[in-house]
């Protein structure tokens, strides 16, 4: 009987040797005369255990990790003889880090073969579409609204309202655009799902097309993600062949076409209007709103533009019903959030869970603290535009409003952990520098403010007139926050101001008052 082995093809696993491990397993099997089938899956997201190899057994899929090429043969022997091995992790689904999660969006990621439409269908794929085809478009829109899903790209705008606006706007053409320009450092959920379960993104976009009456969709993927581009293109071709894209999709009267477009290294194109400009073949300069993309979007037509994770959440909502999704979460943050633990962290990876978990649980308990073994000093949540939080704020629940109330944001769900060797004035400087490099140049607060910000923080770091220059930085931040056109200039103050507020000692000596007479 052929033994079935699973080795991730995910870029994060490949970066730590998954391709070589797959090859080593194949060779070891050949020399032992064992017939093996190696299925290249996505990643389950337990990155400290990558490359993680799984073997199909009567007990379920048994995992080993992190496997190196030198250990591959011994791991294969442990599988064939069902004997203990130091890298044996037990049945994958029972690994506590995975079992604690609520995997709705990422249920299939790391489990299925991302190139196999058959695998997708066997794992509940296209059930959302099947149910949706029995509903009116109004009923689909009502389900999405009732699920409470908010845009997972960062802004958290209710998806149902966006879709309804597009549905109600009449036009000869409408578009569905998937924002896969995942530029935030510390985030990789879009990449993982595109590489590990691309059909769920296709299904979600198809459902959006049916709901609002659009027949053409674009997935705009950043050029830094070549593996995701390849995975999405392969999946689109497979969906076409299987009749799930194109004319009369899934045997219905609907038509929907999809095309991948590749970005060219501009962070600002993650901003939705800038992305639309880029898709139209122009410089990624931010557009004024209104008009909203829902009214006048791509090529001036009504456009649904959502993040990868928003589209990927839709098939579950349509298949299981809005309530099944909305039952998870807290307050106005419903459903689950795929949280990404990154940076200097022991157990980094993707942790999908209901909203409401605290930052401290995520960093200390799930993440296991710093990989360096040193104490955690700061955590940046929400990418380069997110605030730095000290330990004192670790009781903050993961929830859009709770983070906003503490001058932070959850953004796209990235959590980057720093140990006590971090210099927070340097991080503040980097935030300004990054904004200066990536500014599209349209508005003055962002374009000039960021450059002045770098210069001023440099003066502070050199110890020049620290108090006065901190006042200048604060003033610059206020101007950028309230005067910038989009979130790039508008949110860069979050990391800068949070570093100043919570880590003031890193910006030189604090102002001394009158010395007490002794």
């Amino acid at each position, binding site marked *: 009987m052929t033994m079935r082995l699973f080795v991730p093809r995910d870029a994060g696993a490949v970066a730590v040797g998954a391709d070589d491990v797959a090859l080593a397993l194949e060779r070891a099997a050949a020399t032992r005369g064992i017939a093996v089938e190696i299925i290249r899956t996505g990643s389950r997201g337990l990155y400290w255990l990558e490359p993680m190899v799984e073997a199909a057994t009567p007990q379920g899929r048994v995992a080993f990790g992190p496997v190196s090429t030198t250990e591959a043969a011994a791991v294969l022997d442990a599988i064939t003889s069902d004997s203990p091995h130091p890298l044996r992790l037990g049945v994958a689904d029972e690994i506590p880090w995975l079992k604690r999660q609520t995997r709705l969006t990422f249920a299939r990621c790391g489990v299925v073969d991302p190139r196999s439409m058959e695998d997708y269908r066997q794992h509940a794929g296209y059930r959302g579409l099947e149910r949706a085809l029995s509903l009116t478009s109004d009923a689909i829109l009502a389900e999405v609204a009732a699920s409470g899903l908010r845009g997972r790209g960062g802004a958290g705008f209710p998806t149902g309202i966006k879709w309804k606006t597009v549905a109600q706007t009449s036009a000869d053409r409408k578009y569905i655009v998937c924002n896969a320009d995942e530029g935030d450092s510390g985030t990789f959920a879009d990449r993982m799902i595109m590489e590990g379960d691309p059909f769920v993104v296709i299904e979600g976009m198809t459902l959006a097309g049916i709901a609002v009456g659009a027949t053409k969709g674009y997935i705009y993927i950043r050029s830094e993600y070549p593996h995701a581009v390849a995975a999405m293109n392969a999946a689109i071709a497979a969906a076409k062949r299987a009749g799930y894209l194109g004319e009369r999709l899934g045997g219905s009267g609907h038509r929907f076409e999809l095309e991948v477009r590749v970005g060219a290294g501009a962070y600002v194109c993650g901003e939705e209007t800038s992305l639309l400009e880029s898709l139209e073949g122009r410089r990624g300069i931010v557009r004024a709103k209104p008009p909203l993309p829902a009214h006048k979007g791509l090529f001036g037509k009504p456009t649904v533009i959502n993040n990868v994770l928003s589209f990927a959440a839709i098939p579950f909502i349509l298949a299981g019903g809005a309530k099944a999704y909305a039952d998870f979460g807290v307050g106005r943050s419903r459903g689950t959030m795929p949280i*990404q633990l990154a940076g200097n962290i022991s157990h980094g990876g993707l942790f999908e869970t209901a909203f409401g978990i605290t930052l401290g649980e995520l960093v200390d308990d799930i993440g296991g603290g710093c990989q360096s073994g040193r104490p955690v000093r700061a955590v940046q949540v929400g990418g380069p535009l997110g605030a730095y939080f000290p330990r004192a704020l670790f009781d903050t629940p993961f929830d859009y409003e709770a983070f906003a109330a503490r001058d932070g944001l959850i953004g796209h769900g990235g959590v*980057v952990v720093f140990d006590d060797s*971090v210099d927070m004035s340097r991080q503040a400087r980097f935030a300004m520098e990054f904004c200066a490099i990536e500014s599209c140049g349209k508005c003055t607060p962002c374009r000039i403010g960021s450059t002045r910000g770098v210069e001023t923080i440099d003066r502070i770091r050199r110890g020049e007139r620290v108090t006065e220059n901190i006042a200048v930085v604060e003033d610059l931040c206020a101007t950028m926050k309230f005067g910038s056109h989009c979130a790039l200039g508008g949110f860069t103050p979050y990391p800068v101001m949070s570093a100043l507020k919570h880590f003031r000692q890193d910006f030189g000596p604090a102002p001394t008052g009158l010395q007490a007479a002794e």
Partner: protein
Amino acid sequence: MTAPYEPWDEKRGADIIAEHAGLEGATLVILHAVQEAFGYVPEPAIPMIASALNLSRAEVYGVFTFYHDFRKQPAGRHVLKLCRAEACQAAGGDRLAARAEARLGIALGNATADRRVTLEPIYCLGLCATAPSALLDGRVIGRLDDAGIDALVAEAQR
């Protein structure tokens, strides 16, 4: 090693442009295709793209210069990109970048004098849980340490 690029050829350039000119919003698609063939976007291609898409030269030039990916001249034989974003910074990326700069004798954003290696910053490869990470000619590498970066630099110099 990066794919061996073709030398600039006007006829070949025109064919590439014509192949994609019918797409909606084709400018970026064409610039990518031209760069994939020639390793950079040769200056004569700009007015050709403009004319094929009925745009002004200024408009196409503006697009070309706006995006970090497009090159005015060919890169070195190997391109080593080091992630310089926060997750990699937290995992020691700054030190590794300085080490690579010292080994190659160039600052990030430059090519070595023998045109063997171009060293560039990249802002996030999405490998943030296996940081610090790098990209050598399209190959991703994670969990880099001093020995790892030395090996990458040596490989790029070959």
